[in-house]
């Protein structure tokens, strides 16, 4: 019973992504394992559409930093620095379904904040801003959450030195 409910939700999620948000593929073909890649402009609209369709629980968001990678040969181009923000929503009730997607950002791009859609996104986005340094545009209170207020830098970036000193404590 709950499995069929879950399957219905999964198919609805796939159709929604393919119909309105520019994800390639057949309408009901399975999504990639690490989540579909959605364009930056569609991020907030997708969250709103999913909320209207029953995914009413904001679970988490996780940002990842990918530093610039030089090509393997000297002639290869350098892969530029970028970020990825993954967002996870859940539907509420029996046969709960997890909807997740990724958004890729260049180093100087921002992503729309979801605080106006889901209130629970507030501290989650503050944490990702604090640790990874992704700017959530439209966030009402984008301050540091985990690190001290006077901290410089974002420690979960891949190019951050793990033993960075912080006077006078270490």
């Amino acid at each position, binding site marked *: 019973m709950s499995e069929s409910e879950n399957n219905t939700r999964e198919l609805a999620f796939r159709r929604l992504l393919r119909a309105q948000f520019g994800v390639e593929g057949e309408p009901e073909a399975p999504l990639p394992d690490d989540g579909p890649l959605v364009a930056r402009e569609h991020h907030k609209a997708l969250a709103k559409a999913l909320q209207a369709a029953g995914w009413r629980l904001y679970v988490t968001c996780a940002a990842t930093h*990918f*530093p610039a*990678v*030089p090509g*393997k040969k000297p002639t290869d181009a350098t*892969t530029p620095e970028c970020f990825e923000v993954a967002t996870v929503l859940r539907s509420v009730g029996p046969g709960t379904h997890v909807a997740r997607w990724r958004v890729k950002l260049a180093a100087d791009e921002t992503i729309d904040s979801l605080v106006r859609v889901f209130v629970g996104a507030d501290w989650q986005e503050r944490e990702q801003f604090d640790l990874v340094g992704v700017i959530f545009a439209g966030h009402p209170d984008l301050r540091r959450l*985990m*690190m*001290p207020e006077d901290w410089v830098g974002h*420690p979960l970036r*891949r190019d*951050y*030195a*793990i*033993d*960075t000193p*912080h006077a*006078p*404590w*270490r």
Partner: protein
Amino acid sequence: MAVNESDRSFDHPLYETLERFPGLDLATTAVDKVLTWGANNSQWIFPMATSCCGIEFMAAAASLVDLDRMGSITRGSPRQSDLMVVAGTITVKMAPRVKRLWDQMPEPKWCIAMGSCAISGDFYRDIYSVIPGIDVAIPVDVYIPGCPPNPEQLMAGMLRLQEKVNLKRAGLWSPPETRPETGKTIEPAIKRLLQAGRDERITAAQLDQAMSLMLPAVDLPPRPEPEPEPTAEADAGTTEAPAAPATPDGGHHE
């Protein structure tokens, strides 16, 4: 109201007067003993329990190993406490708060660093967000090693603190506390990069893993070329040839 007494002399003329009365110095000594006994048996604790050592602290305060036996009860306010037990990892964000709470405690006050995180940061020591031991922020009187120390060890530390309070109040010298040394280091199970005896397949696998994480390519130092085998002419002709075996490991030591 704060009064700065740092430049005042404490040789009050009242003391000279008191010493002239027969028997009064004896009375002050007796009062001092009573005060020491009272201070030793009413160490009210302010628990700075930031992580798992706090659970062992709770066990020590519970009925099996009863801290209340020696008059030590936990207080929620630093203004009513004599002893701060730092039980857990102190992060860079927490350290100013700990210092502030310590400054709010009235004198005389004591501090116990409980567990290896509070002593030295332990395995979080090199992380950007953890301070390497609470004694960079506040003075520590007794160190209790362990990860976490069990309640009996905390009790032993409290007894040691009592000895120290006795000595301090009697005006005697007590040895300064130092961080405990274990005297042994744990060898890593897998040899580190560029260490002798390391399996090259592990190096290759780790390099592959690093590449798949999109980390920058690692530039290893070039492999030293094997030295040509000494010929009979070189042995006979040059005088520097016997000096070569004196550095068997390729002259890495300077």
